[in-house]
């Protein structure tokens, strides 16, 4: 019944050099939950999604989307889809 929510969590986490454990502690989740979110096996609640976004100081739509994300290089260099 639930829709697939796409996310850029793994990429942002790697870019900011934040471990799953550290992120999990910061948002009050289990480190495995972060892994399941990254793999698309679990859709976080709005509460958890907002906490993750706040941790990275990003708008929630920068991390989560109902549509697949375009590759960042396409967004930066403007390649048309």
């Amino acid at each position, binding site marked *: 019944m639930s829709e697939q929510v796409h996310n850029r969590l793994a990429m942002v986490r790697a870019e900011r050099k934040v471990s799953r454990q550290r992120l999990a502690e910061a948002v009050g989740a289990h*480190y495995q*939950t972060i892994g*399941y979110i990254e*793999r698309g096996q*679990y859709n976080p609640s709005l509460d958890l999604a907002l906490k993750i976004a706040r941790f990275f100081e990003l708008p929630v739509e920068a991390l989560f989307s109902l549509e697949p994300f375009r590759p960042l290089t396409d967004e930066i260099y403007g390649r048309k889809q």
Partner: protein
Amino acid sequence: MTEQMTRYDRRMFELMNRPEAAVLYATARRRRLVVAAHIVLTLASLAAWLGTVLGESAWVMYALLALLLPWCVATGVINAATRGLLELRHRALDERQIADKRRVVTRAHRLTTWVLLAAAAGVGALTWLGEVDTEALAFPVLFAVFVVHWIAPLWVAGLTVADGPVDDEVVGDEAAASPPPAA
């Protein structure tokens, strides 16, 4: 994780997230084997306990004692595989784990409903055929069903737990060394 975790909660969280036995539950096949072994050990222990209570043979008690240690080990492995899903209090679980726990308990309830039905039908059929004394059968059957009802969530949890994220081994070490998530 809306409430403050107690010292007991933190200790249990650390215990349930220790990575030492990870090799025993790393794949779905190994988890199925552990659960199958746990089912066999539980049923054998149950039979031995009933033999101790209802029978007169002393060796059954020694068999029960011999079964207890591997049963405890198998229980520990399943608990470690599920990261204490059924052992930790709600306040030590996050939203995904609480949802998983509800799903596991619901499935186990459905399973024990069928076990109860089978037990009732079996006892009813034997009584109808006049082959057994219903009064003598009541206690062992009821106790066996109680044990299945009690432990079924652990079996379901062990069978349904998903593989951890790829780099879990590294993160698992971190988990053992660092405190549980703040409430």
